[in-house]
């Protein structure tokens, strides 16, 4: 270990991975680091990677939880791999060393590398570094004993002291990356405002970690991270699921409708329920119902009653909600259905990310039951698209499925708090005054084909809705074949016409010479964007179209496709969006890049696969 020669690297971005037992507080350490960095003007992107078990046996391989954060400029993803890996025990090292970049640095808690620790992590020798074939620089820090020493006089018991280990490691990382420890302390004090003793202990420990790094001049590079000029405003750190919740609230404010959420806890969507339950302070009615079906059904009841109504879930829950969503299609009521996708099928990989629910969202109901599908592309875009899903639902009187995923739902970014007038007003299509006389429930706005919304409590507009097919004129039950055919067609056309009310599709990394269009949708944007940039750096003329509006597709989609020679659809499933596009644009061949491992793409693998496709095409 070289103790004398401190080197400072200036980097445009850097990724740190905190790993330890599920109970070690790696996420908290990572979050504080993220927020401190964002406060310095870095772009940030985070990705928690945690096991389905809440507390698997301590020190076991199954209990390892990770939290990766990328900071700097031009950060679009949490990084394929990390520059610095913090491993709080042997199991964490074993599980996470594969995420370390060549030339990266590992920091381990040397105190946890005991015979017992090694045995629990199923090491067979007493030299874990050699056993894993690690050649990277390893900084062995006695985190546990240093934490204990820092808190000798605190009066805390051993168990409470050990809970502060994560913050010692955080202090060390703050030193390594030149983060002001004062900002971190301010966040710790806020986080533990109701537990002053814990706040005090963690403040002591973070300083101890920081000073330790400083004093030993830890023999690794220290980093200075570039900041980038960003749009002036007030910023906060936001997780995708929070942003989704806030987007719904913004839509409620802009439409003047009360917000109702009916939900049932399910990983990885539950944080939306948590956030909206807190937002009683803004008048949100968030009801935890008895099951997934009751979640969506209570929302449909609330929608009939005149609220902006939403339900939040993940894939298995969407399956349970299918019949009820069909009712909302038939009754033509606004409804926002949020699916934070996870690995499937069945219970699958509950804490991992996939894009495997697209087909379910598009087609997973009985009968011809079209609805709108949208997908946010990043944690902050969850806000925009939750707003958009609400706007489309209200303006077009239809259920809308928002396909988020575990990666962007749990990931976070710095986000500028929108100004009061930044989002447009949403004008609900209440029954117009001149149509009240003789109004029937399926009278429609001519342009959009949306029916009108009569709010219970309004005199003169009493009406009955239901799942049975209705006569298009009178709204009474009808089994007339021609009427049914016509209603099926109207419901289809109504959704198709939403294309007139959504933004045009954008193309990134485009140039007049670009002949290949990389196509993605939803939460893979960061990785695909970085991949497209890298390909262009390599001289490949690849543009990127990342779709946020899936059904209907933006009106200019066909025109965009006409400009390119090759199409490559990259998605975290076996080709659901590619199939969807292929059916609509049979004149083009859509190449496919697919990954179904419960993990996000890596930029490098996308670049490689695009190159393979391009070389075959040559």
């Amino acid at each position: 270990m070289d103790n004398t020669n401190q080197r400072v690297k200036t980097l445009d971005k850097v990724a740190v991975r905190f790993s330890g037992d599920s109970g070690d507080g790696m996420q908290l350490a990572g979050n504080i680091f993220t927020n401190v960095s964002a406060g310095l003007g870095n772009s940030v992107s985070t990705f928690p990677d945690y096991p389905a078990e809440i507390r698997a046996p301590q020190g076991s391989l199954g209990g390892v939880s990770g939290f990766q954060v990328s900071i700097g400029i031009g950060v679009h993803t949490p990084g394929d791999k990390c520059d610095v890996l913090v491993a709080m025990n042997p199991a964490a090292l074993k599980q996470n060393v594969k995420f370390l970049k060549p030339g990266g640095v590992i920091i381990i808690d040397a105190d946890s590398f005991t015979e017992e620790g090694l045995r629990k992590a199923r090491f067979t020798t007493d030299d874990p570094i050699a056993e894993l074939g690690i050649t990277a620089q390893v900084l062995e820090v006695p985190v546990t004993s240093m934490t204990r020493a820092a808190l000798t006089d605190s009066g805390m018991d051993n168990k409470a002291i050990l809970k502060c280990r994560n913050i010692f490691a955080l202090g060390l990382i703050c030193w390594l990356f030149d983060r002001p420890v004062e900002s971190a302390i301010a966040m710790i004090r806020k986080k533990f405002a109701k537990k002053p003793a814990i706040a005090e202990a963690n403040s002591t420990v973070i300083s101890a970690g920081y000073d330790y790094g400083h004093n030993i001049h830890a023999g690794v590079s220290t980093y200075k991270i570039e900041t980038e000029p960003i749009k002036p405003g007030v910023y906060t750190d936001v997780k995708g699921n929070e942003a989704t919740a806030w987007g719904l609230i913004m839509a409620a404010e802009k439409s003047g409708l009360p917000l109702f959420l009916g939900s049932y806890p399910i990983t990885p969507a539950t944080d939306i329920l948590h956030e909206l339950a807190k937002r009683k302070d803004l008048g949100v009615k968030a009801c935890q119902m008895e099951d997934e079906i009751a979640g969506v059904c209570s929302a449909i009841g609330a929608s009939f009653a005149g609220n902006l109504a939403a339900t939040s879930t993940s894939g298995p829950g969407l399956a349970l909600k299918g019949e009820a969503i069909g009712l909302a299609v038939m009754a033509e009521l606004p409804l926002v259905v949020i699916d934070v996708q996870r690995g499937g099928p069945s219970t699958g990989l509950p804490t991992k990310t996939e894009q495997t629910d697209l087909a379910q969202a598009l087609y997973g109901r009985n009968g011809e039951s079209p609805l709108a599908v949208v997908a946010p592309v990043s944690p902050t875009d969850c806000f925009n698209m939750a707003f958009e899903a609400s706007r489309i639902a209200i303006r077009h009187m239809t259920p809308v499925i928002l396909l988020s995923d575990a990666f962007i739902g749990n990931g976070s970014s710095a986000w500028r708090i929108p100004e009061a007038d930044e989002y447009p007003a949403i004008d609900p299509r209440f029954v117009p005054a001149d149509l009240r006389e003789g109004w029937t429930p399926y009278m429609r706005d001519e342009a959009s084909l949306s029916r009108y919304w009569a709010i219970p409590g309004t005199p003169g507009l009493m009406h009955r809705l239901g799942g049975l097919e209705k006569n298009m004129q009178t709204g009474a039950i009808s089994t007339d074949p021609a009427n049914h055919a016509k209603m099926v067609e109207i419901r289809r056309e109504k959704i198709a016409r939403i294309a007139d009310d959504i933004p045009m599709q954008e193309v990134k990394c485009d140039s007049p010479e670009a002949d290949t269009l990389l196509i993605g949708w939803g939460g893979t944007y960061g990785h695909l964007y970085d991949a497209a940039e890298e390909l262009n750096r390599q001289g490949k003329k690849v543009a990127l179209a990342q779709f946020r509006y899936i059904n209907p597709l933006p009106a200019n989609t066909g025109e965009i496709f006409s400009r390119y020679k090759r199409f490559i659809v990259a998605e975290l499933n076996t080709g659901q969006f590619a199939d969807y596009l292929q059916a609509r644009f049979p004149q083009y061949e859509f190449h496919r890049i697919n990954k179904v491992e419960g993990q996000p793409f890596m930029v490098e693998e996308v670049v490689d696969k695009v190159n393979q496709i391009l070389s075959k095409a040559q």
Partner: protein
Amino acid sequence: MESNATTYKPGDFKSDQPVRWCAGCGDHAVLNSLHKTMADLGIAPEMTAVISGIGCSSRLPYYMNTYGFHTIHGRGAAIATGFKVANPAMTVWQISGDGDGLAIGGNHFIHAVRRNVDINMVLLNNRIYGLTKGQYSPTSARGFVSKSSPYGTTEDPFIPAELVFGARGNFFARSIDVDLATTREVMLAGARHKGTSVIEILQNCVIFNNGIHAAVTDKEYRADRTIHLRDGEKMLFGKDNDKGIVADGFNLKAVTLGQDGYTIDDVLVHDPHTQSNFLHQQLAMMDGTDLPMAVGVIRDVDSPVYDREVSAQIEQVKAKKGFSTLRDMLLAGDTWTVN
């Protein structure tokens, strides 16, 4: 909506749709009773919503000139819950049957009762699936022969009242489809009760289960095999009103006044408002064999109401935090400013 001078007639609550139940179906009487009850209540049609699931009885909303929603099988209680929470000013009725409410919708039923959301559930119990043409239901007796149980069922039924008490229900009443006066009485009491009111109506399916309740409900026996419970009154029954219910240890016993030394003083007085549901449950479980089946309001107890509690909590939290917009709330959190 109360205390305006408008009065309503049953006809104000009737829609223009032809009623499509079979001739002789018990649902017709229930529908008429509901129209009359709504007129008695005096709540405007536009302030009333009728929500149902699927089944013969669930067609009922189409026959109402109120806001109405004929939804999907079993989910009426969940949809009515969301509706009431979202728009608490509305008076909400939920119409369900033994299959819709207690089989496919059993989970929503017990949870709505547990939450005590202010909805009036009318449970039409004919102990059969009518719309699917004659399968046994969760209230069919063990051994019941139907198309899906040709050799008799091998399972015990739910007794709706028992389920309501198990779910800690605060209002339970019972009536018989043909007894219009009692149906109207219990519907009115249910509507006035704040919280979930479960109103079970023994209803005859003339096609697939004709006479299933006849042993209790036939005019010939009804006086002796049923007892009409009324708040504060002695539990008397029989053609000559000479029979009564008395306590026999922890059990109930039917006696004839003047026989075996029993006098009117021994007969229990009905109190639907007592907190303990012990006696209510025993009364509700009387089945018309050894003891007469109880009709009328059996339990009617005040308890916190879900939709009101939700609204009240929101007002409390709003007052405490004082945010008026999302932006206010966000600016009060962890933020930093970029100039």
